[in-house]
């Protein structure tokens, strides 16, 4: 008979905290600037840090570095893209908040037809860095300590999201295909998490939505022409489910509407595109999370339809000073 108190198994809680950090999307920046993966807006301990490295392989008729997904009919692109960034969580007015910077980089090549001319072009380098700020406005309070983490359940959570891309990425006005976009653009969104059932690792299920609207400034030098882009509406949906305590999957769907581009007064088609995908996530270690995803557009055979399929592999390394310190103490025993 054992009466010994096991006040708290620190290793268990260490893992819980780190697992929570890694499982949440706040430490998993988007696989593409315009899209956010499942579990992106889960909340974690304030003052946590993360560095993501995300590698994506695209094929389609739009430039994946362009959040407007401006379709170039008849074009064909292949791109390899990486996103690296840094994210930090904090508490603001007792609400969970997050700030992040994400820098896209990579290369893209393909055939592009502009004003009746076809180009075989390629581009590489750094894209437009994007600043992101997110704050929860409806849902549990910020997790300022481990007891808060322990008691966190999203229930029904609603956030306010603000993105702003800085037009400092590599841009060549002589080229129709660029990594940088040569314009300001950003997004306002309201990420929603709806917890379905218990919040127990291995059994968590969520339904998540991201309604958002993108705003685009003008590109005054798009191969010597002026490109205007209408606001674009976005709705992401994810049904996510833990498969084990460390392994989860999600069914993803994305819908874009609007975003009509006008080049020198010649308007293109507005977007009305629908895509579906699948994401699998696995926690490799206490600090390292791996995801693999695939997404593809549907009903995309008409010339003006967006065509895109994307493979994504992400690695996210997350840490928190408190957790790291606890680990060191524990390791020293």
């Amino acid at each position, binding site marked *: *008979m*054992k*009466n010994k108190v096991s*006040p708290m198994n620190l290793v268990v809680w260490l893992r819980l905290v780190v697992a929570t950090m890694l499982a949440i999307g706040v430490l998993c920046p988007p696989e593409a600037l315009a899209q956010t993966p499942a579990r992106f807006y889960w909340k974690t301990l304030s003052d946590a840090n993360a560095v993501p490295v995300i590698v994506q392989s695209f094929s389609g008729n739009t430039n994946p570095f362009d959040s407007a997904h401006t379709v170039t009919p008849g074009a064909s692109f292949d791109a390899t893209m990486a996103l690296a960034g840094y994210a930090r969580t904090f508490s603001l007015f007792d609400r969970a908040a997050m700030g992040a910077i994400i820098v896209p980089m990579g290369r893209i090549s393909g055939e592009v037809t502009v004003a009746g001319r076809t180009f075989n072009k390629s581009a590489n380098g750094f894209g437009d860095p994007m600043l992101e700020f997110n704050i929860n406005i409806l849902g549990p309070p910020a997790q300022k300590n481990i*007891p808060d983490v322990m008691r966190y359940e999203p229930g029904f959570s609603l956030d306010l999201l603000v993105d702003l891309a800085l037009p400092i990425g590599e841009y060549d006005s002589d080229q129709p295909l660029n990594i940088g976009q040569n314009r300001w653009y950003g997004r306002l969104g309201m990420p929603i998490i709806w917890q379905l059932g218990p919040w127990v690792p291995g059994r968590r299920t969520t339904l998540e939505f991201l309604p958002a609207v993108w705003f685009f400034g003008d590109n005054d030098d798009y191969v010597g022409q002026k490109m205007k882009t209408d606001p674009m509406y976005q709705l992401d949906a994810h049904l996510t489910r833990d498969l084990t305590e460390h392994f989860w999957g999600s069914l993803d769907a994305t819908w874009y509407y609007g975003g009509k581009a006008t080049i020198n007064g010649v308007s293109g088609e507005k977007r009305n595109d629908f895509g579906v995908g699948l994401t699998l996530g696995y926690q490799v270690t206490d600090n390292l999370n791996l995801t693999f995803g695939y997404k593809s557009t549907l009903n995309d055979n008409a010339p003006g339809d967006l065509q895109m399929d994307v493979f994504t592999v992400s690695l996210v390394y997350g840490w928190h000073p408190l957790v790291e310190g606890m680990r060191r103490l524990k390791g020293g025993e």
Partner: protein
Amino acid sequence: MVRKPGNLSRLLRTLGIVVMAAVLVIPAVAFAADTPRRPNIVIILGDDLGFADMSAFGSEIKTPHLDSLAKDGVRFTNFYTNASCSPTRSVLLSGVDMHQNGLGNMDEFTAPNQWGVDGYEGVLNDRVATLPQLLKDAGYHTYMVGKWHLGKKPEQIPAARGFERDFSLLDGAGSYWDMTNFTAAAPKSVFTEDGKYLTRLPDDYYATKTYTDKLISFIEAGRADGKPFFAYVSHQAPHDPLHLPQDWRNRHVGEYDKGWDAVRQERLQRQIELGIMPAGTKLAERMWFIPDPIVLAPATRAILGKKMELYAGMVENLDFHVGRLIDYLKKTGQYDNTIFLVFGDNGAEGTDLFKMIAGTPGTRDFLFAAINWSQTHPNAWGDPGNYVGYGPMWAQVSMTPFSQYKGWVSEGGIHNALIVSGPGVTRPKGSINSGIMHVADIMPTLLEIAGASYPKTYQGRELPALYGKSWGPVLAGKAESPRTEQDYLAWELFGNRAVRQGEWKLRWLYKPLGKGEWELFNLAADPAERKDLAAERPDKVKALIALWDDYVKTNGVILPSRSPFETLDDQLPKRVPDDPGYPPLIYKKQFVPPRDMVADPKP
């Protein structure tokens, strides 16, 4: 007209049948006719419910329905059970000391030198008559719901021991959600309903709810004939695993982060204010292996506090379902003619049962637990597949202000709260009594209330003497205690033993919770058993040992050759005194110099 002999014979046979039928029917008619004078009886037993867990006994846990019974009746502050569940239940239902009624030891721990010995069968033996048998014979309906733990064979189950209707868990514990039990050797809990072994549980089963549903249906079904009923409501709650519905889990979030010492102090303060404990009562020492919560990290206090949050939720859920029963009785006009007894079956549970049950990696039961009981995440606490108990620190809170907990014959193992309300209780409503009561008293008390008596023989067998004394004079306000200063009570379980006479108590506990020798306490001055007076009062020790010897001789006590506590001294940290504030090192706060003497370093 000449009657044929055959016709006469038929007539006589007919007359005989009529007479016999009349003989059989008349008592029932007579009982029915005097129903208003014979109350219904409801015993509400909380499994491992602690002395201080009801609001009426100083708890912050909200128990309005149980409290309402206390307001309508009397609270007893010196009520004793045995140190664990089946021994208490056996005494409750037989009125006979556990060493005679078959539960001389728990079935799960019967020692080799007790095997095959009368009184140590591990089940309620057939040499005793049961309370439901005698009440049934006296014209009562007899119902039971909940935990039995007194035998599983057909001749041992509730239906065979006097209950007309039952819905019973025969095991000592198990899941609240399904039939999952704890070991690979006995993986399924065994249930009976009306004497039949169940193949499955009802839809929407949750123990506390289903037991209440069943009992209400039993009472309703039996109501038409006007007979009084005896209901043994043997709740599984709040015994661990702390299983409870989701919406009952988050009613005390963060309230217990303050730690067990603070909650114990608050409970004691309320007990003193309520009159449950006298002013000046001190808390029992915090057990030496339990840390001072104020030196723990917030996360530690939160995770340990969450266990108590669940426990509090279980007690409140139990109270809610007791409320449903009370409401039903009020709506059907039966409440005013119902006597209620409410108590816990022993001290609160401070031992990690799951560790005992699940064994260690590599064992058969560990594998079973890995498959069936491995939902260990705190957010899964309360769910099927999770086993969480609340530990010794909170068990001490449940037993405020007493020392130790279930399994031990210190006050924290055997001293429980008792509420009695209803007909026959003429003491002022809401009053408190400190007479020395014992669970064995319930048999003679209820037989007296039912107008029955304890027979010398039952079904051809001579019955052992009752161990208890009727509370009739106490309930009527004619006496303060059923016991005189010369009467004594004694206990033995797992080799731990104790005897109480008046305000004195002698106890022998295995090391390190005890000294492995007799300790003497004056419970009037020291209810928390803090100061061992054995060295100062050898005369009292000697006198009480003589009473202990009498108890052993009278009841056939055989001290076990093996005990679950026999190696505890090697498992727990070395026992040290509980000196508040020691060592000062961990309590010293940052020194703050006088503001006018603060300066930056000179260049």
